[in-house]
């Protein structure tokens, strides 16, 4: 029986062109730019200077404060500069640029392919090691993982919820990871279960990946307490709150966290990184990225060093097609349109998508016909048409009353709207303004 969440949800074209393409090692580029702001939270403190020699896996920036994350070098070579580069946001932000020279790894990293299932570290040591290894949520939110594992006193976790849904169109990086690294993911889950002291983990996988459900179920028999659950295909099933609803039928309260219903959520990619950090002593400096697009010659799934410019990925796929109109970091539903080919891959980059000119432009907006389809598809039970109407009139307090801040920006309302209304644009605007109002209220 396949489970799913309620209410809302849509079925966008899946376009999983690279499903089944094995993970290919992307050649180390000549130069990388490793942004400091790859995660939610404070920017880390830079530990290297211009001209320093660094090795693969060496700590080059240390997390500052509780919510922050360490950054490690993804290549060996010489630090060229610490300067602003254009990142995924379209703004210039500080990054450490390194000129690559060879591929020398720090000695502590275990590079053997051997699977280690025995977990030697104790609970506190695990959290500490995850913190040191710079692990953040790799599904895209990039929330530092050690923070999720450091529970407030008195809070008890009952379930580890693992996101293998990969509901975003085009992306297949989690899928291929589950096919090729199932045991590592399951050991990773066991490590997190030990750190959180929970007995039960659910891994949710959408049934458009039957091979992954079968393979993971087969391997999971060897790992006590871990259950694989097939999910009916529906976007946005990978949303934290939707996944919890689908798997354990609990609703995270408005403004709350998964822990409020006894759950902690990890992505399969993050679990793989956890395995590597704890069992192989390997910090997070590379990840699987789906590089795709209907007009690319050779789309595929690649293991990419953090800081690699996306131009190198596109090169590996046979170069940029003539009719390219849009380049997106992520998938069609929640991805960000990029303005440069030099934007570096970061810890949260799950995919790169090249769209042709014809699919790049938005359709012309018309009057709202009040068909209420936006309400039907909203997974948070909001009224997007009303939020947009308030947004247009700058009635941000009214938007707050109507729970605009519950919106996770999945884009289902925009997708379904027959009048092509830019509902999410106004909801985003409202969320920013509401936060401003809230800050003023506090002062």
């Amino acid at each position, binding site marked *: 029986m396949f489970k799913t969440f309620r209410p809302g949800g849509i079925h966008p074209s899946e376009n999983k062109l690279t499903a089944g393409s094995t993970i290919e090692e992307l050649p180390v580029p000549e130069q990388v730019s490793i942004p400091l702001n790859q995660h939610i939270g404070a920017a880390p403190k830079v530990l290297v200077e211009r001209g320093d020699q660094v090795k693969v896996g060496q700590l080059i920036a240390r997390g500052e404060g509780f919510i922050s994350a360490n950054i490690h070098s993804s290549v060996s070579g010489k630090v060229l500069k610490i300067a602003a580069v254009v990142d995924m946001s379209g703004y210039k932000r500080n990054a450490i640029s390194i000129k690559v020279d060879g591929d020398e790894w720090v000695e502590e990293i275990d590079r053997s392919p051997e699977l280690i299932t025995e977990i030697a570290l104790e609970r506190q040591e695990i959290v500490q090691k995850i913190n040191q290894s710079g692990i953040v949520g790799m599904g895209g939110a990039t929330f530092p993982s050690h923070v999720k594992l450091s529970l407030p006193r008195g809070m008890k976790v009952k379930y580890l919820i693992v996101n293998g849904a990969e509901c975003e169109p085009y992306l297949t990086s989690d899928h291929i990871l589950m096919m090729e690294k199932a045991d590592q993911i399951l050991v990773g889950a066991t490590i997190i279960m030990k750190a959180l002291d929970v007995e039960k983990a659910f891994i949710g996988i959408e049934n458009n990946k039957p091979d992954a459900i079968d393979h993971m179920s087969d391997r999971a028999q060897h790992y006590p307490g871990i259950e694989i659950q097939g999910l009916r295909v529906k976007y946005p099933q990978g949303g934290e709150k939707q996944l919890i609803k689908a798997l354990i039928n609990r609703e995270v309260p408005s403004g709350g966290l998964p822990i409020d219903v006894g759950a902690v959520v990890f992505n399969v990619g993050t679990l793989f990184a956890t395995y590597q950090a704890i069992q192989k002593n390997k910090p997070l400096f590379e990840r699987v990225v789906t590089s795709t697009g209907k007009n690319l010659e050779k789309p595929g799934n690649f293991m990419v060093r953090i800081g690699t410019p996306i131009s190198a990925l596109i090169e590996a796929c046979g170069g940029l097609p003539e009719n390219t*109109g849009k380049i997106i970091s992520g998938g069609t539903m929640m991805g960000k349109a990029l303005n440069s080919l030099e934007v570096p891959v970061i810890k949260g980059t799950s995919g790169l998508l090249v769209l042709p000119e014809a699919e790049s432009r938005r359709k012309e907006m018309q009057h709202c016909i009040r068909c209420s389809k936006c309400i039907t598809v909203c997974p948070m039970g909001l009224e997007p048409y009303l939020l947009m109407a308030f947004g247009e009139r700058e009635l941000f307090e009214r938007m707050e009353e109507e729970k605009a801040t519950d919106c996770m920006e999945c884009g289902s309302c925009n997708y379904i709207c027959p009048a092509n209304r830019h509902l999410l644009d106004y909801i985003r605007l409202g969320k920013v303004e509401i936060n401003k109002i809230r800050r003023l209220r506090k002062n």
Partner: protein
Amino acid sequence: MGLLTISPSPHDHSSESVPKLMYGVIIALLPAFLASVYFFGISTVIITVTAMVSCVIFEFLIQRYLMKEKPAISNGSAMVTGMLLAFCLPTNLPIWLVILGSFVAISVGKMSFGGLGNNPFNPALVGRVFLFISFPVQLTSWPEPGVNHFAYLDASTGATPLSIMKEGLKNRESISHILLDIPFYQDMFMGNMGGSAGEIAAAALLIGFAYLLIRKIITWHIPVSILLTVTIFTGIMWLIGPTSNPNPLFHLLSGGLMLGAIFMATDYVTSPMNIKGMWIYGVGIGIITVVIRIFGAYPEGVQFAILIMNAVTPIINKYVKPRRFGEEVSNG
């Protein structure tokens, strides 16, 4: 490579569009149209085409020359209005009245509020009620079904089951006696009775309803809540006084109830935006319809019931909210 487009997510759009929805409604109305042609012949075609063409022309003229904006007649909404208006008119209505009704529907009912999406009342019903109040004689003489397929204005006329019932009850005749003058239920279901162009054939309207549901153009909540309310309310009346009240089946199959519940009340613009609101709206229409039919002066009340609940819709939208995710926390 030319310039890269930068726009916020999402970067994909469904195939949904306003014209697609509107033409979907027109397709759903076709079975009822064909049934009407079968029973009333050429006159159905004359008034339907007249109403549709006039609605489109009036909307074009008003948008182009009064509102001075780009006409949006290609979205099909004016055609739907015209078709629905024609469906609730007798097929022997003079052409100039059809054109006048179309004018009122589009100008007063729709464009005076700013056009598609802004009108509080169903435009087709505004046109129909205007004609009904201004020209009661012409609006209450219906041609006999299946008599002459090539007659238009000169068709022989008869009454509708609802007006026969109303008249009979007023004269204190018993139900069983009145029913002798009314077609059998299976005839009423197929549309073999006197009535307005598109409202006679319940069977054809239900086929249209199924199509609307399959294409996900509307949800089932409004039609079902209306029909259910009418069934329960008239059922209670029938149980109380079976000799002075017709049974629920008669109410469901007569008058404009099916057309109103499936096609008029479900108009996007003038109906509530969420499921809870739709139930309140549907139950309201059902109750008002029955009250007018049983206690009111008119034999039929669907049009008035829908217009009254149209007026209540903004209040429903304001106070009835969908269930927010995480509103009731079930922690266990």
